[in-house]
């Protein structure tokens, strides 16, 4: 079942055409690996899908609801979560970072504490709760960011090169968490160059070349 689709999506920087996508359709509960050369527009596409950047033109559909980027609808922000390549953690605490999206959604304190505790256990962050976020390693930051996204149970998860610049151990931990995140309720698009990530089971491949997207119709097992 089609969950998120965009049509006639274009984006240029100055004279350079970065994206010219006739149609991109993401099915519910599927995981997609987005590949392409450096500078091919992978991050730009994810940022547009997340409503952080706006395209020059394009129309989207989420389920049966139509949307565009002027402005990107608030209701869609509740469904789509984007995680930066190098996640930004607020200068508060690990717990407050994980709770941020829940506060933004008005989740009441008791329920918030319960969900944050579950996210901490899920990402195995219990030993890092007293560490200031700015003192965490790259892998630990990535895990906090994934926990912060996981706790919101998004329908669409957009990950921008989650294993870039990580050491081997952190990279494997991140891959395991991403695997665990991508359940049947979550559609995931993961931009990456990482061979192990590209080789994730049950994933479809999206490949960006010259602003155009090549989409596999069947999942690779």
């Amino acid at each position, binding site marked *: 079942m089609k969950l998120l689709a965009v049509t006639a999506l274009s984006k240029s920087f100055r004279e350079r055409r970065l994206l010219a996508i006739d149609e991109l359709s993401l099915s519910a509960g599927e995981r997609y690996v987005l590949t392409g050369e450096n500078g091919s527009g992978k991050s730009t596409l994810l940022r547009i899908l997340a409503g952080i950047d706006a395209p020059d033109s394009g129309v989207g559909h989420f389920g049966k609801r139509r949307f565009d980027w002027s402005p990107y609808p608030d209701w869609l922000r509740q469904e789509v979560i984007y995680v930066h390549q190098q996640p*930004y953690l607020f200068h508060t605490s690990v717990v407050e970072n994980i709770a941020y999206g829940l506060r*933004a959604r008005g989740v009441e304190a008791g329920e918030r504490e319960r969900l944050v505790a579950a996210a901490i256990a899920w990402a195995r962050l219990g030993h890092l709760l007293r560490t200031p976020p700015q003192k965490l390693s790259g892998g630990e930051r990535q895990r906090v960011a994934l926990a912060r996204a996981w706790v919101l149970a998004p329908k669409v998860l957009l990950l921008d090169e989650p294993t870039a610049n990580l050491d081997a151990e952190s990279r494997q931990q991140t891959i395991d968490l991403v695997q665990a995140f991508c359940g049947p309720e979550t559609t995931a698009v993961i931009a990456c160059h990482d061979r192990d990530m590209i080789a994730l089971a049950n994933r479809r491949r999206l490949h960006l070349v010259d602003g155009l997207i090549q989409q596999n119709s069947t999942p690779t097992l």
Partner: protein
Amino acid sequence: MGFLDATYAALRLLFSADPELWTIVGVSLSVTLRAMLIAMPVGVGCGYLLATLRFPGRRALIVVIQGLLASPTVVVGLMLYLLLSRQGVFGQLNLLFTQTAMVIGQVLIALPVLIAFSLAAIQGADPRARETAVALGASATRVGWTMLVEVRFALLAAVCNAFGRIVSEIGCSLMVGGNIAGVTRNIPTAIALETSKGDFAQGIALGIVLLVVALGVNSAFAFFQGESRR
């Protein structure tokens, strides 16, 4: 009276609970704190809006505000005097030579500092901070508050800077306050007056108080900044 004699007399004055001296200190702190309480939310708010909104004339407005950073306080005092004097637009309010007039003057002096520093702080923030807040579904108000919290130490520097500028300014306070004993005489105007009368002891005593206040504010800032880096 030599410098050492004057300093000795100043220290005796400081510890003698001299009512005149401490009234002057009280006027200074009261006026400056009230001015800061008004100027802080307005200045930081304007700085945030200037950093985040795009509108025609924005660049020109920023240039004007940055230019006002160097505006002589006596010119601010002169403009305010003209507005508050009997023939001025706000003459009927009878505010000239009152503490309220001094507060207004200090607010006007503090605002460019607060706006320019807040603008620089927010523009200098990591762009991922805003993007992360937006991506996590925060409302515009929450995004704004988050950004201010993220740059809080830069904002604290703005507040310290503005406080330092207005607690020690003399031009505006003298012109719109009138240096009336017990009412509008603050530390800088009193130092100028006592020095012109040759009473260096009171001038030095007030100068010490002013230095202690300025050092105290900056030490507190340095402490909080240090705490944040631990």
